């Protein structure tokens, strides 16, 4: 009998270990996932509910229908913010991707000290948008920044006053934003470039293709998915832009550089109109959904057809 007992225990031990092996990953993944999903879902629903209430300083019950939405959409701030979003979104995504791709291709030439350059280009990503915004607000200020410097060199007719020009101020956000995010785009593109099969490139070289042609015809076409991913990430960054605006232009001159997130903040905290702020936040969520959902659908479709 004792021998059977022993045999039982020997058989038991790995089974117990197998049980823990199976459950540990689940334990590590699920609670945080449920917690964060709960946070996102619960607070999204809470905001959605608030957007239909007459809440002002504090959340209060009651139902006002679409009143908050129509009111918010009727304000000039809202119009300015969404026109700005289109301008900023397109320019920021295009400029950042182009700059990131250029940097990645240059780094891909197996230059000496690649790590140093990569760190330098990635470095802006490590500082917050508030710092970026503040630095650029000094550089771009016509009285103390680049304009003054160039004028001081003798080019007295030089003008670069976009920061205080109502029509051009939105492009200063693009400049600062692209400077910040280009390193991030570069890192992703570089990973993409390096993942291209070396055999294909060698084959192209044997066929006598030059470097430029290899990039254009062989490397870049295989990077389609990465380009798309970078663009989607940048676009959702553009929609959420807040701190950069606060630090660089303060929404000005006048209200010329308001963005959707600053409108939400303005309603919720400056004006004490939580209901309208919640409505503005839901409209922003809608803008994000318009970007993310088609991308996810595309991903799924691609995954299935592959």
């Amino acid at each position, binding site marked *: 009998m004792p021998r059977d007992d022993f045999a039982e225990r020997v058989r038991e031990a790995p089974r117990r270990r197998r049980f823990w092996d199976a459950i540990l990953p689940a334990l590590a993944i699920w609670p945080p996932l449920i917690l964060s999903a709960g946070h996102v879902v619960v607070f999204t629903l809470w905001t959605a509910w608030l957007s239909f209430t007459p809440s*002002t*300083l*504090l959340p209060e019950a009651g139902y006002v229908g679409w009143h908050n939405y129509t*009111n918010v959409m*009727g*304000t*000039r*701030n809202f119009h300015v913010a969404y026109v700005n979003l289109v301008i900023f979104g397109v320019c920021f995504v295009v400029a950042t991707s182009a700059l990131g791709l250029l940097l990645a291709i240059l780094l891909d030439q197996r230059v000496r000290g690649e790590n140093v350059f990569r760190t330098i280009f990635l470095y802006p990503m490590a500082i917050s948008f508030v710092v970026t915004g503040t630095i650029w*607000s000094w550089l*771009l*200020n*016509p*009285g*103390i920044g680049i304009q003054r410097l160039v004028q001081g060199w003798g080019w007295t007719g030089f003008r670069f*006053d976009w*920061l*205080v020009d*109502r029509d051009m101020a939105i492009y200063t956000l693009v400049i600062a934003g692209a400077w910040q995010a280009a390193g991030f785009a570069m890192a992703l593109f570089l990973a993409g470039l390096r993942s291209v099969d070396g055999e294909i490139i060698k084959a192209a070289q044997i066929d006598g293709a030059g470097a430029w042609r290899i990039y254009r015809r062989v490397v870049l076409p295989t990077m389609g998915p990465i380009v798309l991913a970078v663009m989607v990430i940048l676009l959702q960054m553009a929609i959420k832009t807040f701190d950069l605006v606060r630090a*660089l*232009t*303060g*929404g*000005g*001159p*006048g*209200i*010329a550089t308001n963005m959707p997130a600053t409108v939400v903040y*303005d309603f919720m*905290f*400056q*004006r*004490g*109109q939580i209901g309208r702020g919640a409505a503005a936040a839901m409209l922003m969520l809608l803008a994000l959904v318009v970007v993310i959902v088609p991308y996810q659908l595309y991903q799924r479709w691609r995954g299935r057809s592959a």
Partner: protein
Amino acid sequence: MVDLSRRAVLAGSAAVAIPGVARAQAGKPRLTMITQWSAGSDGAAITALGKLFEQNGGIWQHSPVPGFTTDMMNKLRAEIMAGDPPAASQLKGPEIAAWSKIAPTVDLDGVVAAAGYEAFVAPELAALHKPYGHWIALPLQLYRINTLFASKKAMDKVGATKLPGTWAEFNDLAGKMKAAGIIPLANGGIRWDDGMKWEIALNGISPAAYRKAVMELDTDALMGPEVLAAFEQTRKLADWMNPSIAAQSWSVQVAPFIRGEMGMVLMGGWAQGNIINGGFTFADFLSGPAPQDNGRASYIMNADAFIFWQQKAADLQAGQQLFAKLIMQLPTQEMYSHITGSIPVRTDADLSGTGWSDAQRSSAQGLKDAVKEKQVVLSLAHNMAQPNPITAAMIDVLTEFVHNKDLQPKEAQQRLADAIDSAR
């Protein structure tokens, strides 16, 4: 920052938790308080006020929330939602009425009547602090918004000796400065600063129209000729502003202003503090009331105040009574204004003694005269005239008007009226 020993905190929280214990310890009145004042002269002043409170036998527990006023309000909102508001907090203007609806406040009628205080407060100001007939808040200090500062060097350069009294004289002087290569107006690139220029313009044209249009939101007055004239004057001011200022405070220009590269500043009385703290002296600039076309004294008022939130603990209630008594007293208000550069709320304050500047004396005299002339109005840009939603909607239009030279005064006037309608 206020230093608190751990024992004091424990004792304090125990006192809140157990009313019986609180009553046993009620010997020492205690005050919990939130303000945004943590640094500079504001921080020094509130710290001095706390010391005074302690000298009078109280326990002072101040939690400053540095940053914008809205940050302080978010903290206050959170504490109210948690059911534990401070005994007193900083709050001003019509926000006192708005916030008093979301949590119970203390009826201060008794302590105000006992001090005979109401006779010494400008009626416009008193009304803000007793929004529904009872005193629930007390004003602390006043600033005059419509104040003009002029650089001595710039004035000398164009041969001017006297501050302009009317907008016509102002425009004339600013034109001369511009011709002499001086930027006539040192301004800030911040929205409330733009709003302030317009309110000073309108008040300078007609305080009566200001009262009707801005404080009562009377549609006829808003579409009337005085408001249109105010937009036209604001356009002139905008043309004279420093074109390089972007999202910065006016005070970054103190040095060029004193050097005479910029001519004038239209700013509240605290600008004096900015200039003096910048290392300059009273000989470097002139100051006085902003232009006033009808020639009689007027006063755009900005006042800081404390609102008192209802408390269950006896020591906090006693603390509120003690604090209310203290801040109504003239010496307390004088002590505070000495530090911040404001003027006392009490109209019986005598500023002829030492420790006061000419700018403060001019401001106090201006208030006395304006009360007599019935030309005291409340500041829009500093959240005194309207609750935040309406103020913000109006300032949106004003700041856009300052920066968009294509926007005509007539159209801006219509937009202002529309913005008010949609915010209501």
